Every structure is written in structure tokens, then in C-alpha cells.
């Protein structure tokens, strides 16, 4: 986990004593609970400064996670007051990595709760079912159903139902199982980079045609499986990244020559440098490492619904 420098906003990692950018003493300020805007020690439990009123950055504003060699980075971006994206990265036994990215729908109520509930529930369900010996595609459908139920259950009378998108990947051996609802994406980044998902959105717009939420009706995820004989990365991301970098080649060029955590940070920084209009979440799962030969991606027929 990491946080933002209270003085200049630069990302700083847990354990760092001073901000690399401006030299702020991190122990003295940001992490002691004082206001990042005015320095007052009186910050309420609801996150607003009791002196100047500013909402304080939270752990979700910028978070990083690493599981074995996989990594995830989520960031508030530059234009939103909250990070409504959520991610989960877990293992299910040796050699199997599960990644989930969910993007809260901004116009719904409490989108940050929806995305977190969906990501947590899906990762938990996938890990449990795969550990029990279930195949990845069946476990994935179950995980999406459980996540959809968790988001629907968060609805309260008298408000718009909380809603979010969903994309997940289960990487095991040479097999990857990808599923999505909405416009969060999965990419294959290797010698022949490719977009693995097709947005559930009206073409050329951000008008979602599918999402998780009490008002979504029955949720039918797209589930796709593929195998590869070469090394590369599976990228899961929210539209905060792909709005700026939709091309698989550009993403591969930025990600392939570094460790996953460094590559994830770089992709997030690129999105922020391009404007940071939305929350940005990037999960990178290395895949087929050590296998010989060129990376090729083979898609079987989609088995959704």
C-alpha cells in the first residue's frame, strides 16, 4: 500500500520517510491524521477537516498491491474527488492468480461501495471454488453472479441503485479465463498484443448496456478462455486508462520491459499525465513466463450465457 504526499500529492510508498518529490517529512504530516489542506489536527472520522472542511484523501485514493509476481495499482486520477474503482488480486493455490477490476458507475449512488463489494465478492468466490476443484469458467460465472447479488443487495429505497462494471481474469498454467460486464477491459500484452474484451456499451460512447446493480436485470457475463505458448501479461483495467490508451500495442510497449508493479505504476502515470479525467485501475498478471516460442493467443468460441 502507498499514499500521497500531503504537501505535493506525489505518490509515496509505505515506509518512505520523506517525499522524493518535495522532501516533505511524511511521518510528521500526512500519516499522523492531520489535514492535508490546512494542517489542522482535527480531522473527523467522516474524513472532513473540522477546520477547513476539506475531504481528506483516503487509502483508496492511491493503492498498490502485489501478489507473487502480479501487481495492481488504483488511483483517484486528477479530476475526481473519490476513487470509485476497486480491484482484487489473490492466488488460488500454486500457479493460479485471480485478478478483478470493478469501476463504480458515477451517476449511481455510492458507486465506491458497489465496486468494492463486487471485487471482494468475486475474488473470494473464485478463490474458494477453484480451490475446491471447480473449473475456471464455471467458477467465474458463479463469481459474477455472487458479485451481482452483492451489489444489488447494497441498494436502498429512495435512491438510485449502486452500480459498477466488472472484469476478471483467472490465470493458471497456460490458460486464462476472462469475464466481463460493462466497459472495463482485459488485454493480452505480448509479442502480438490484443484486446480480449468487447465493451458492453453503445458504440463510441460510454453509455453502458450492461452493469452490476439492482437495476441491471439478470446479469449474463461474457466468458472467454484462451491459451498461449509464450510469455506476456494479462492487463485488466478501467476506462480511466483505456480512454487515453485504447491500442494494445501502445499498452504493451509501456508495460513489457519492466516488473509488473513498475509497469502498472507507469500506466497509471501515463493516464494521469494525459489528463487523469477518471479513476485509473491497472492489474497486470504475468503469464506463460519461461515458456519457449512466440506469444500467440488462441481464442476458442465465446461461451457466454
Amino acid at each position, binding site marked *: 500500500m502507498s499514499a500521497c504526499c500531503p504537501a505535493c500529492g506525489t505518490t509515496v510508498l509505505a515506509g518512505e520517510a520523506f517525499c522524493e518529490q518535495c522532501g516533505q517529512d511524511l511521518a510528521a504530516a500526512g500519516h499522523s491524521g492531520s489535514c492535508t489542506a490546512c494542517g489542522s489536527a482535527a480531522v473527523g472520522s467522516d474524513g472532513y477537516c*473540522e477546520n477547513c*472542511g476539506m475531504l481528506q484523501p483516503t487509502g483508496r485514493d492511491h493503492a498498490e498491491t502485489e501478489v507473487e509476481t502480479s501487481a495492481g495499482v488504483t488511483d483517484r486520477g486528477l479530476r475526481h*474527488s473519490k476513487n470509485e474503482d476497486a480491484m482484487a488480486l489473490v492466488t488460488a493455490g500454486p500457479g493460479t492468480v485471480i485478478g478483478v477490476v470493478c469501476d463504480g458507475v458515477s451517476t449511481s449512488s455510492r458507486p465506491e461501495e458497489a465496486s468494492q463489494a463486487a471485487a471482494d465478492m468475486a475474488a473470494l468466490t473464485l478463490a474458494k471454488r477453484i480451490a475446491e476443484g471447480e473449473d475456471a469458467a464455471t467458477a467465474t460465472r458463479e463469481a459474477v453472479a455472487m458479485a451481482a447479488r452483492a451489489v444489488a443487495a447494497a441498494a436502498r429505497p429512495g435512491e438510485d441503485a449502486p452500480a459498477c462494471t466488472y472484469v476478471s481474469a483467472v490465470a493458471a498454467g497456460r490458460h486464462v479465463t476472462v469475464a466481463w460486464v460493462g466497459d472495463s477491459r482485459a488485454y493480452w500484452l505480448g509479442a502480438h498484443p490484443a484486446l480480449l474484451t468487447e465493451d458492453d456499451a453503445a458504440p463510441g460512447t460510454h453509455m453502458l448496456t450492461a452493469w452490476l446493480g439492482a437495476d441491471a436485470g439478470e446479469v449474463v457475463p461474457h466468458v472467454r478462455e484462451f491459451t498461449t505458448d509464450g510469455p506476456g501479461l494479462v492487463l485488466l483495467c478501467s476506462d480511466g486508462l483505456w480512454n487515453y490508451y485504447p491500442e494494445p500495442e501502445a499498452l504493451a510497449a509501456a508495460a513489457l520491459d519492466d516488473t509488473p508493479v513498475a509497469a502498472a505504476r507507469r500506466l497509471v502515470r501515463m493516464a494521469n499525465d494525459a489528463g487523469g479525467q477518471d479513476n485509473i485501475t491497472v492489474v497486470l498478471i504475468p503469464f506463460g513466463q519461461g515458456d519457449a516460442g512466440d506469444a500467440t493467443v488462441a481464442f476458442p468460441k465465446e461461451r457466454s450465457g
Partner: protein
Amino acid sequence: MADFTIRVDQNKYLPAGSQEVHGIVTAEASGPVGAAPAADAAEVIIVDTSGSMSYGKINDARKAAQAAIDTLRDGVFFAVIAGNHQAEVIYPGHGGLAPATPQTRYESKQAVAQLRADGGTAMGRWLRRAADLFSAHQMAHPDAIKHAILLTDGKNEHESAPEFDANLAYSAGKFVCDCRGVGTDWVVAEVRRIGSTLLGSVMDVRRPEELADDFRAMTEAAMGKTVADVALRIWTPRSATLNFVKQVSPALEDLTGRRTDVDALTGDYPTGAWGGETREYHISVRVPPGQVGQEMRAGLVKLVVPQTGQVLASGNILALWSDDPALSTRLNPRVAHYTGQQELASLIQEGLQARNDGDIETATARLGKARGIAERAGNDETARLLDKVVDIDPATGTARLKRVVDKADEIALDTRSVRTVRMRKDPES
């Protein structure tokens, strides 16, 4: 005690650099109504007995006071004051309040039956007398809900303006006073000042024979109050300015100048006693300009019992700077509605003032515009009263003042200009 809730309606999104934040705070009390112990309610009935009350009015005033006495629950403490250029407690005689029993009701109604119309008008002295009765009662009954009814038919002619001001200030905070003006010789602005200061309603009563029903209804409403003293406690950030705090429903009341500081960033605004009811407040805060993506709490609004500090409910007024014009230019419908209601009241009051000053052009413009707003916003009663003052050509929409206007209609329009309607179509329900 009743259950209190607060809801805030606003558009929290501001364009970059913008500083004005508006919110409508809906405060609702529900739950056990009429559950306050009778001994914790105190009622003083103040009847105008000036000379102008003769010719029959005094008879209707007697009946009204007696109707109010009959409405008091057993055990409620009460007194009756006869007011002219002096103030006399005609019941009970011992300088305090008497608990309502069949016996005291009978005795007090006998005393009321003896009221005679004679002398001048000095309302400040009536209020001071009531304040002293309540203050004495407060010693033994600290939680008492203190309510008075004031009836007048005339101008406040027999005390100087400074004395009236002093008497009104002396009474502020000691009790809530609902005021009624009967006939056409009382001055709306004068009585409105009493109602505002003492957190009560002001209404015109066109015919004296309507007084009894009105007194009964007011007393019943007073008996329904369960919490004596509630304040709106508002925190605003350092370097922010509270532009105004106004009650906007059920009637307009500017509370901005009524602040009692709690600390450097927090102030209390009195709201009086509450029963099962809903009131709405318009709060405007000027905040320092923020950057896109920043979120700020521009106000923390609480309902509190000021004596104990007990918090009954709370809500946030937020500011979130955005570069999305679709978000930041959206008007919150409730803020827009009550902004319109405030404009309507100003137009009516300014229009009537201009009419009295002989400025026909201004009067016509203001009252004509008011007629249009009243119709669009659903102020049906106001529209009906405006029709008695101004004619609108249905073809051209041009307004023209009526030549002859019933004084009672003018008074009704003025008095009721501060009463608002709730949104015709509530998007929340």
C-alpha cells in the same frame, strides 16, 4: 421525544473557481406527538382590550379566549392577560400560572367574560408581562414549552418605539408567540416583527366571529409541541462565510441575524418548540475557491437542544468542484423552488409598499410579476389574493392595478406573502 431527521437538497457540484454553495435543509420531527407531560406546557392568552375592540369585537375576543381555555389539557399551566396601554393579568390573580382544572377553567372563563374594551394599545408591555409570567414559571418547570397567543386589532400607539423595542428584546427567547390581527386597523409590519422575534406565526383574521375556531386551532397546535427549545447549529469552515440562514417553509423567516456563537466556526439559530412537523431552511455559504476534484464540507447542519447539547439530527452541505458543466450548471429543483418563493414574497411586499407610496408603475410591475410566479409555483391562495389587487389581461399578460381594493384583502396578501408552498411535484417522492 420525537424522532428528528435532516435531509439536504443541493447541487454539490461547482464550476472551477466558484464559491457560492446553496442547500435546502429539510428538518422533520415525527414519532410520539402530544406525548409531552401536561405539566410541561405553559400557555398565556393575550387579548387586546383597547377601546377599538368595542362594537362587538370584544365579544368575539372573549369567546375566542374561552375556546382556547377549553382546549387546554388538564394540568397545563396558563394565564390570561388583558392588554391595552397597560397589561393586566386577569387570571389567575397570584402573579403566576394556574394549572388547568375544571375549576380554574370555569373561573378564568368568568374573568374573561368581564373583559371591557377601553384604553390604548401598547403591545410591548403585554409581551413583557407574559415574559415575566413565563420566567417565574420556568424556575420550577425548566423544560416547559412556553407559548402565547396575542390578539390585536390596532396600531401600537401608546408606547414609544424605543420602549417597544426594549420590551420585545426583553421577551425574545422567553416564549413562542403566535399573533393574530383582526379587522383592518392593525399594521402588518408591526405584528410581523413580534411574530418573527418570538418565532411564532402571524395571520390575519378577517371577521371577528372566526376568532374562536382560530384560537382553538392554535392552542391545539401548541399542545402538540413535544420539545421546548431546538436550535439549528451550523458549522462552516474557517475562511468560509455564512451568507444567510432562512427558514423557507412553512413561512419565510430570515434567521441570519439571530446567531449565537458556539465557537469560532459554529453558531446556533433558534427555531423554538417542535411537535410532529416539517420545516425547511435555505442556507448559503461562500467558500474559498477550490480546484477541480476537491471536495469540501461547506456546512455541517445539526438540530440540537442548546441547553444540553444533545444532537437530534445532522446533515452535510458539500462542495465538489468539477469541470463537467453537465454537473455544475444543474439547478437543484428544491433550491430553485425556494429561491422563487423568496422572490415572490419580496415582489408582493415591495409592490404593496409602492402602491401605498403612490408609485403605480413599480407597484404594477412587482405585483404583476408576482402573479405569474404564484401561478407557476402553485401558490394558489396567493394568486387568488393577488387577483383582488391586480388585473392581468389574459390575452397580453399585461398587469393593471385595481382601482378599488378591499383593505382586508390587502392585509391578507401582505400577511400571507411570507407563507410558502412546498414543491408542487416532489422529485423525491
